[in-house]
């Protein structure tokens, strides 16, 4: 994870340092799985946060982060299966994994609905992800106690 890339919102009023205080997090991932470890750091952060009963309001994939959502990524068996890991995490915890539509289309990631509209035949979106717009990002940052950018 690139340290400069990490942005944490300042503490809201009335927030006291307490092990019991449960947080609502919004997470953003900006880099592709093979460009940096940021996506994997986010994945591990989310697992740790969930194990301590914190809430992950939404994970937003932006810039090259959309490369996490490609269904047909087929790494060798002895490597980390990034996309499958996210799909599994979403399934286990009902995570809301949102891929930005404009960033996705630029990079050739099309859900079947959108592909049809564009006269194409793709259906690239992996299980557990959904495609939506930047309004979802704004909502996530408004709802969350903390917003953290990875990558």
């Amino acid at each position, binding site marked *: 994870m690139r340290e400069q890339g990490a*942005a944490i*919102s*300042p503490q809201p009023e009335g927030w006291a340092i307490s092990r019991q205080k449960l947080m609502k997090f919004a997470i953003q991932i900006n880099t592709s799985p093979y460009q940096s470890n940021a996506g994997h750091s986010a994945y591990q952060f989310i697992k740790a946060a969930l194990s301590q009963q914190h809430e992950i309001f939404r994970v937003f994939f*932006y*810039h090259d982060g959309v490369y996490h959502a490609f269904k047909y990524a087929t790494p060798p068996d002895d490597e980390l299966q990034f996309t499958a890991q996210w799909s599994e995490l979403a399934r286990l915890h009902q995570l809301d994994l949102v891929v930005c539509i*404009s*960033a996705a289309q630029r990079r050739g990631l099309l859900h079947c609905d959108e592909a049809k509209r564009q006269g194409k035949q793709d259906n690239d979106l992996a299980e557990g992800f959904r495609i939506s717009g930047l309004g979802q990002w*704004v909502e996530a*940052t*408004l709802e969350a106690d903390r917003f953290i950018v990875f990558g």
Partner: protein
Amino acid sequence: MKRYLFVLRKAPHSGAYVQELLDIILTTAAFDQHVSLLLLDDAVFQLKNGQNPDCTGMKDTAAIFKALEIYDVNNIYTELESLQERGLTVDDLCLPLQTLCRRDIAGLIQDFDVVFSG
């Protein structure tokens, strides 16, 4: 409503980075949030006067910064040292900015609810 600070650090035409960051900035402003920008490091080149990206077929991203005013994004900050290290002054830039010293940047960032560093 929250106060958002977008921290830009890259030069123009760094892939789709600037375009996509401007999309997120404009969307946030369109949702009536309080939006400010901070240009650090090579991002000071974003607003450099006299860019002519058309000649290489690139999009004029500086023009989009000029449109931010329409969305009530009037607070654009930069860092004096970032300008000096690149031989620039505020007169080389195409928009009026508020210039801060490096030691005052942390204080500025503390004023915001959401800090987005791209």
